């Protein structure tokens, strides 16, 4: 097994591109985003070398824009009707409110899955390596159906079907993925994901049980009805022990799921092959955690500076306060995205790419072009729903 991906990007180039995107974004009331996104993707794609050659992004802003327009036509009707109908449901009382929220969630979740698959299809077909394109076969609707079904089962089984959901999604997506005339294949299964996720699922459930037992038996609250539960929890949250259980439980659960997430990434990569070659990843949880801790520290520092500026401004004249507040807002708006890219996305991509290995790097030179259908227009639904980081 040998490394085959490198990621080398200039932080200056990322920063200046993001600043330009924000600037023109404000000037054009947000419509620059299609152009901005395309420029940013070109930069990121060509910064990744696979087997010594750069990836190339072929998408255009025009495609994204038309995709957005098509999505607008569809969504105007669908979402308008749904939004108003849900507004009505929410007004008609608590029972309908819950029902409305469930419908809303399912509808949005379904759309989100659908958009995600379309987004992957678009991006694959607009990506080339050594002049040969990637593509994604399959039907977005089938994917959505499978994902929705197993999400509902996951909810009904209180999380125990989650590994199966992950397996179903990876299976459909990767087995439909191809590079030129070579197909990717995924040989993983639900059992593999289950081995990774069971501690996280079990411990999270234990924490919920401990919390429930403590609130009902020790504090003596009545958790029968919906309303009582809500009120009792608001009351119980005043108790320091409840707070300790809840917050430490959330921290433990977050940590366990992070470990599982990294392990499942390694598992997916390890179960994926292209032609005669197989992949592997040695991405380490510690490295991901370090990046996240650094990002959190940078974020806290940034917030501290801004709060400091506002506090300092508050001691000045009223006009200065307004001026400084607007300044702080612009600062947050401009800086936060740049920090996210420089301290989270770029380091994560670097960590992921540098730990990726392949059994036979020659495979990339043995691929021929196919004439596969590719989507004409961009990821409209994905844009409207804001799916995907860049």
């Amino acid at each position, binding site marked *: 097994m040998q490394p085959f991906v490198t990621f080398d990007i200039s932080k200056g180039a990322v920063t200046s591109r993001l600043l330009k995107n924000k600037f023109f974004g404000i000037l054009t009331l947000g419509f620059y985003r299609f152009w901005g996104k395309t420029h940013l993707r070109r930069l990121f794609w060509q910064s990744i070398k696979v087997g010594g050659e750069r990836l190339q992004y072929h998408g255009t802003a025009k495609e994204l824009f038309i995709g957005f327009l098509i999505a607008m036509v569809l969504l105007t009707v669908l979402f308008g009707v749904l939004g108003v109908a849900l507004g*009505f449901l929410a007004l008609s009382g608590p029972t309908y409110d819950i029902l409305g929220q469930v419908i809303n969630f399912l509808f949005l979740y379904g759309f989100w899955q659908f958009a995600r698959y379309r987004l992957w299809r678009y991006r694959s077909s607009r990506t080339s390596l050594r002049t040969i394109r990637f593509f994604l076969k399959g039907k977005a609707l089938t994917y959505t159906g499978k994902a929705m079904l197993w999400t509902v089962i996951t909810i009904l089984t209180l999380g125990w079907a989650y590994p199966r959901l992950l397996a179903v999604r990876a299976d459909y997506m990767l087995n439909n993925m191809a590079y030129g005339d070579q197909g990717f294949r995924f040989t993983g299964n639900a059992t593999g994901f289950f081995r990774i996720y069971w501690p996280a699922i079990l411990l999270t459930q234990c924490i919920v049980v401990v919390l429930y037992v403590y609130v009902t038996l020790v504090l003596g609250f009545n958790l029968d009805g919906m309303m009582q539960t809500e009120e009792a929890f608001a009351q119980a949250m005043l108790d320091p022990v409840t707070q300790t259980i809840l917050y430490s439980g959330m921290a433990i659960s977050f940590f366990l799921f992070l470990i599982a997430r990294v392990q499942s990434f390694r598992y997916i990569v390890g179960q994926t092959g292209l032609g005669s070659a197989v992949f592997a990843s040695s991405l380490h949880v510690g490295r991901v955690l370090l990046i996240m801790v650094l990002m959190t520290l940078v974020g806290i520092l940034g917030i501290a500076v801004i709060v400091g500026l506002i506090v300092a401004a508050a001691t000045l004249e009223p006009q200065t306060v307004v001026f400084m507040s607007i300044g702080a807002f612009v600062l947050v708006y401009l800086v936060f995205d740049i920090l996210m890219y420089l301290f989270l996305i770029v380091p994560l991509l670097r960590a992921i790419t540098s730990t990726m290995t392949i059994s036979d790097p020659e495979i990339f030179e043995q691929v021929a072009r196919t004439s596969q259908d590719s989507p004409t227009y961009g990821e409209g639904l994905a844009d409207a729903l804001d799916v995907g980081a860049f």
Partner: protein
Amino acid sequence: MLKVSARYFDGNSSRARPVTVDVTDIDLIVTDAFGSELARWPLEALRDETHPPREDELNLSISSDHEARIIVEDVAFIRSLVQVCPLIRKRRKGPPGWWKPVVAWTAAVVVSVTLFFVYGLPLLSYQIASLVPYETRAKIGEEVEGAIIQHFKSRPKNKSDEKKDPVCKGKAGQQALEKLLARFTALSDIDMPPVKVTVINSKLPNAFAVPGGRMIIMSSLLDIAEDPNALAGIMAHEFGHVEHKHPMSLFVTNIGITALFSVALGDVSGGTIIAFLGQHAAGAAYSRDYEQDADNRSISLMRELGYDIAPLIPLFEKLGKKSPDMGILSVFASHPDMDERVKALKDVGRTGSGKAFTEREWNAIRVMCKESV
């Protein structure tokens, strides 16, 4: 220019062929390892596909529909090639007619959004407003009214006013107002519970309808209305709003507009501003339509009861002077232009000869807010 080594991709396979590239006056010549010529690309058609460009790498293409590429990594060669091919880092023009789908789909968006705003949303919001049970509307109305009363409570003119309840309690006046509203209700085709009216002590001359069959009148309006029928006209107008559930429809409409704008302008940059302005402009447009409906209804109610609506004209004129013309900002105005409303009333002429309140009732109404001082 020197011959340098490069990698050539023919566009049909992923295999790179080691080649040498050489530049003549008009062409770039690609030669393979055995010395035979593989390709000859005109310099003026060459483009670099690396965006943003790099000094140490060229990714050359020959046309937008040909996938073949030449990768050159020799810095000196790149520098001199960029000089002889000024267009190398320019983008190619799109194919003829590339703009057609953009125009077509933009038109489709404009049409569907317009249809939705003009026909879909008003229809839908009225039906949904009607579906909302009376109890829910009444609850919302109570909360809105409570908030308004609270608002007037929190702004005392001087310290002694601080704890004063802004709601006017004059009993005889209240009864007179309710009696008129009962007459309006009796004329309505819609089966509706009695309309509740609250008079609030305020220097702003205004009146408005609240969800759940409620209406609020500001005391200043009682002071500047010189004729009982002027007040009755205003009440008939607000009754029109209540009768057609306008406040609730507007509430539902705003939910719909917000949903639409938040989809259209997905991300935060700049879009937030246009979303905010758009929502206000769209909301105000619906509101102006409702005002028109309510004006028409007030005229028909007054006519049916045989009260003359003409005394409303001087009151409108007074109110018009108090609110300055908004000019270009009138797209954000929630009410039609006052001059037009006055003109419409003048066109109607006399609608009757009766008075909506007796002398006694009218006096009781005018002192409603003074009794509690």
